[in-house]
């Protein structure tokens, strides 16, 4: 009988009972005896010299324990927040890596940059006193937008970074691309902006530092996607605390979308300050503080050109991108617009030659780093908009043009001209499934109906491929990663047959407590309620790299499989001993260990009990216990891919775009829990639609003040902004190099959706001669585009 909680079963999320009834334990829910509260004094200026800080009055305020500054941290030899990835420019020089101190020392470089921290008995007292800290600022001109920051004479964000240029990097074969363009029958060109976004997880960032004077142990509880990474970065590089004296706990975390990967200054400050004041120190961001200080996403300005032959075959792609890094390098910032972006510019197409140049720029804005999709949505958006422009210009149907250029399934594995080797994928199949889902052939009739109602209608495609399962450590290392990117797992059977799985992955909304338990239930026949998933505590779990880049199942799940392989091998030894058979004759199936060809068998529960009650074990050959650990380092990236189709209706009177239909067909390899996968796709699509139509992070271009600093101005998508989605997946192209055949599904929706929506919007507006619109396609932007164009004459 099939296991109702095994692989492929739509098991409802076990963690939801706790979350939906308010019984989760988030960082801010944790309170310690004697706990104090930290509030940061933050720069109101985008760029200012800090001439002095007078904390005398604040120190006198009720409840104040300490006011600490960058100078205090310098006196304690606190280091700079490290960057985890090094990029080299075209000329071989390393990227510029100016120091990024947890509290600014001489200059504040963005609105929200921490200048001092007040620690008081209560949060309100700390806030009151923070207003009394007198900072003597000398305001400086600010470099706000990436293009302006690159101009000669622009204000210098860091004195020793000339022209604000962090690096000038490239990838691909420029000569081959030039040669291909020289032969082209047609060149499609596009300038486009991938606008800056604010990540906005439901739970704001928080950190609680503790120090035990008796043991010398520090504990940091923090809203992190990867507690071991924080322990390594903060312990080794910032505070100089060895691993055995530093515990980092990431308890329940309410969403991350990348923004909680990075090591933030507040984590170091509360850990350091807890020892300094001798009491626990807690900081929790307010929502306004989250807007100002969480690392933002995207912010690319690009020019792209696609060369085609007379039949519409892609010959070459040329891309130049300027990426805004913000004021400092966040933990993985340099990797996002380079190895997670330019390497994906082949998309699903067999374009033989690709050349990309990326300039990364410092500006007086909050740092920019990974945000759901991280580089891959930017790549997908660029390619898919450009392909749509090429289709419009050549008159080739946009589905057909894509089909003509897909890497055929038969060509897998396929080496792209931009470093990656795709293992599997059947892109034409995705398209074949998608077209009838949206009744592509019926579009003309639906459009006619819209026209009758005075509306415009458009349909748009996006095909995407992403590199997930980050990452083979050897490749990542060669590309500049300063870390390995494996994952860890430990599978511990207890004497009565229940199981605890310790995983280095971290769940902050992904449902690991369900999906990972399904793996164990499937493998050993253990009821799912007897499987516990433990994550997020460096004192419990083996060294793990955490969750981002849709890696948890592909890498973390594979580590669990490896650990289960070891458990099974050990269980076979025990079974052979108990059943007096040769180890080679023991077969493991659905949790039973059978002597081949006999009816003699044991359950894993029988074996677990024996493992811990080894009264007659041959101890020379067999150790007690049933508890195994594994590390899995992937052999390649995984390549989720799919085809998204969006249909929109536009009201030309107001410019309002309504998404009326959206279908997503995805190849995630093998699917463990289809319910969770569909939920991940829905969430991703909403974020992608949000970028296309609603979300826009705006700084005042002169003053550097954040204009969209609250939900009153930063528009989050809501349920009534999106349609009911049609989501399909197929499983006949499993990943070839991990044991589960899985590819990852967390970011897919975000990657495909923005391009699909914008292609539909531009299609709807094409009768006005509009060929491109930057995101977000707000009502006014659409209306202005319409009124500045003239409708084409009615077709003859």
């Amino acid at each position, binding site marked *: 009988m099939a296991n109702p909680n095994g692989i492929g079963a739509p098991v409802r999320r076990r963690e939801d009972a706790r979350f939906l009834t308010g019984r989760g334990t988030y960082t801010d829910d944790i309170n310690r005896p004697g706990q104090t509260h930290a509030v940061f004094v933050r720069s109101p200026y985008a760029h200012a010299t800090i001439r002095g800080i007078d904390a005398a009055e604040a120190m006198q305020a009720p409840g104040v324990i300490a006011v600490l500054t960058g100078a205090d941290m310098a006196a304690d030899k606190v280091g700079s927040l490290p960057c985890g990835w090094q990029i080299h420019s075209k000329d071989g020089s390393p990227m510029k890596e100016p120091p990024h101190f947890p509290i600014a020392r001489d200059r504040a470089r963005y609105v929200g940059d921490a200048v001092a921290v007040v620690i008081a008995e209560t949060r309100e007292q700390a806030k009151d006193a923070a207003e009394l800290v007198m900072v003597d600022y000398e305001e400086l001109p600010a470099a706000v937008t990436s293009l302006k920051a690159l101009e000669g004479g622009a204000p210098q964000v860091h004195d020793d970074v000339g022209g604000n240029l962090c690096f000038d990097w490239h990838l691909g074969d420029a000569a081959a691309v030039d040669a291909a363009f020289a032969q082209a029958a047609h060149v499609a060109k596009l300038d486009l902006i991938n606008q800056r976004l604010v990540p906005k997880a439901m739970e704001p960032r928080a950190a609680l530092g503790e120090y035990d004077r008796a043991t010398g142990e520090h504990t940091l509880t923090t809203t992190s996607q990867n507690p071991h990474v924080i322990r390594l970065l903060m312990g080794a590089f910032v505070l100089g605390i060895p691993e055995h004296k530093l515990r980092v706990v990431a308890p329940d975390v309410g969403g991350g979308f990348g923004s909680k990967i990075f090591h933030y200054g507040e984590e170091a400050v509360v850990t350091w300050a807890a020892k300094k004041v001798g009491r626990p120190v807690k900081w929790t961001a307010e929502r306004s503080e989250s807007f100002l200080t969480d690392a933002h996403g995207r912010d690319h300005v690009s020019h792209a050109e696609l060369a085609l032959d007379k039949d519409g075959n892609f010959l070459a792609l040329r891309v130049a991108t300027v990426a805004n890094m913000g004021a400092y390098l966040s933990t993985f910032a340099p990797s996002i617009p380079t190895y997670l972006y330019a390497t994906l510019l082949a998309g699903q197409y067999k374009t033989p030659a690709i050349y990309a140049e990326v300039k990364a720029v410092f500006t007086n804005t909050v740092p920019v780093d990974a945000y759901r999709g991280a580089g891959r949505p930017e790549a997908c958006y660029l390619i898919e908009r450009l392909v749509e422009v090429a289709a419009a210009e050549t008159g080739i149907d946009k589905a057909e043009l894509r089909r003509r250029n897909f890497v055929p399934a038969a060509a897998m594995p396929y080496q792209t001209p931009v470093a990656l080797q795709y293992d599997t994928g059947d892109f034409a199949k995705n398209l074949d499934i998608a077209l009838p889902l949206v009744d592509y052939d019926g579009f003309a009739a639906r459009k006619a109906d819209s026209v009758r109602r005075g509306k415009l209608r458009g349909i748009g495609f996006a095909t995407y491929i992403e590199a997930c399962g980050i990452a083979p450590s050897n490749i990542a290392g060669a590309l500049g990663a300063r870390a390995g990117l494996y994952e860890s797992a430990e599978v511990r059977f207890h004497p009565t047959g229940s199981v605890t799985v310790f995983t280095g992955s971290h769940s902050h909304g992904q449902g690991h407590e369900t999906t990972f338990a399904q793996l164990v239930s499937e493998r050993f026949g253990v009821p799912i309620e007897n499987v516990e998933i433990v994550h997020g505590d460096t004192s419990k779990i083996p060294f793990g790299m955490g969750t981002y880049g849709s890696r948890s199942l592909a890498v973390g799940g594979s580590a669990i499989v490896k650990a289960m392989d070891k458990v099974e091998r050990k269980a076979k030894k025990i079974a052979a001993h108990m059943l007096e058979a040769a180890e080679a004759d023991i077969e493991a199936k659905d949790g039973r260990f059978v002597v081949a060809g006999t009816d003699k068998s044991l359950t894993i529960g029988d074996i677990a009990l024996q493992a811990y009650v080894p009264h007659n074990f041959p101890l020379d050959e067999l150790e007690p216990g049933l508890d195994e650990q594994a590390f899995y380092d992937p052999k390649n990236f995984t390549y989720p891919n799919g085809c998204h189709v969006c249909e929109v209706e536009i009201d030309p009177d107001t410019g309002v775009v309504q998404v009326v239909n959206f279908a997503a067909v995805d190849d995630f390899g093998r699917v463990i829990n289809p319910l969770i996968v569909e939920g991940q796709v829905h969430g991703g699509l909403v974020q992608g639609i949000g970028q296309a139509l609603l979300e826009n992070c705006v700084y005042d271009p002169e003053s550097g003040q954040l204009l969209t600093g609250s939900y009153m*101005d930063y528009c989050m998508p809501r349920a009534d902004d999106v349609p009911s989605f049609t989501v399909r997946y197929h499983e006949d192209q499993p990943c070839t190099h991990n044991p589960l055949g899985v590819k990852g599904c967390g970011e897919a929706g975000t990657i495909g959706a923005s391009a699909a929506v914008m292609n539909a919007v531009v299609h709807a507006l094409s009768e006005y001669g509009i060929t491109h619109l930057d995101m977000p396609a707000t009502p006014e932007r659409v209306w202005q585009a319409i009124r500045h164009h003239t409708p084409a004459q009615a077709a003859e």
Partner: protein
Amino acid sequence: MYAFTYHRPKTVADATALLGQFEDPKLLGGGQTLLPTLKQRLARPSDLIDLGQIPELQGIGEEAGGLTVGAFTRHAQVAHSDTVQRVIPALASLAEGIGDRQVRNMGTLGGSICNADPSADYPAAVVALKATVRTDRREIAGDDFFTGMFETALEPGEIVTAVHFQKPDKAAYAKFRNPASRYAIVGVFVAVFGSEVRVAVTGAGPSVFRADDMEAALAQDFRADALNGASVSADGLNADIHASAEYRAHLVRVMARRAVEACG
């Protein structure tokens, strides 16, 4: 939030007395603007006087053919009131479109009009429905109540107790909402009283205003197409990252047309 002293009087008279006692008191309605302002430490009242427990500020009733709505009536109560839906359905519909469910369950009519946010919905109804704003000391014509951006004709210490709306022959409110805040980028309330047509515009300017040209055009010919020649100048209209003045001017006509169409 800075510390303040909280009061909850049971009568308007008590509230008035409290207002006179303190250095910098503030009246609290549903708190949908004031509380976020306090949380962000943008205001520092010495005392908050909560009007939520005063029976005389509550209630919806028919009066002189129109409607009288107590100042402390929450938006959701107006939206779901059988009386409002029967007498002036456009007013119920306006209330149902304010903010979101949480805002409607807390926000009050009195709080909204006293705050006089240029993007609030209710001011359009007060002006278009020839309302009378009743206070603890006088009656103020709806046309005279809103005097500027966040400014009203209220004197210091004056408390709005109710608003009386006249019943129009027909009326409708059409709103183009800010997708983020869901305030009105432009809201147009059209009301017909016999031969008189009122077109009140909120969101577009510093304060609610009547679109004279549109009123005249509609008085001649109450059809959406009658507005084709009428327009509102972009001069002096609000402009922000969500909508320029010219876009708002354009939306006034689009929303006016929709309101006329909705009048049937």
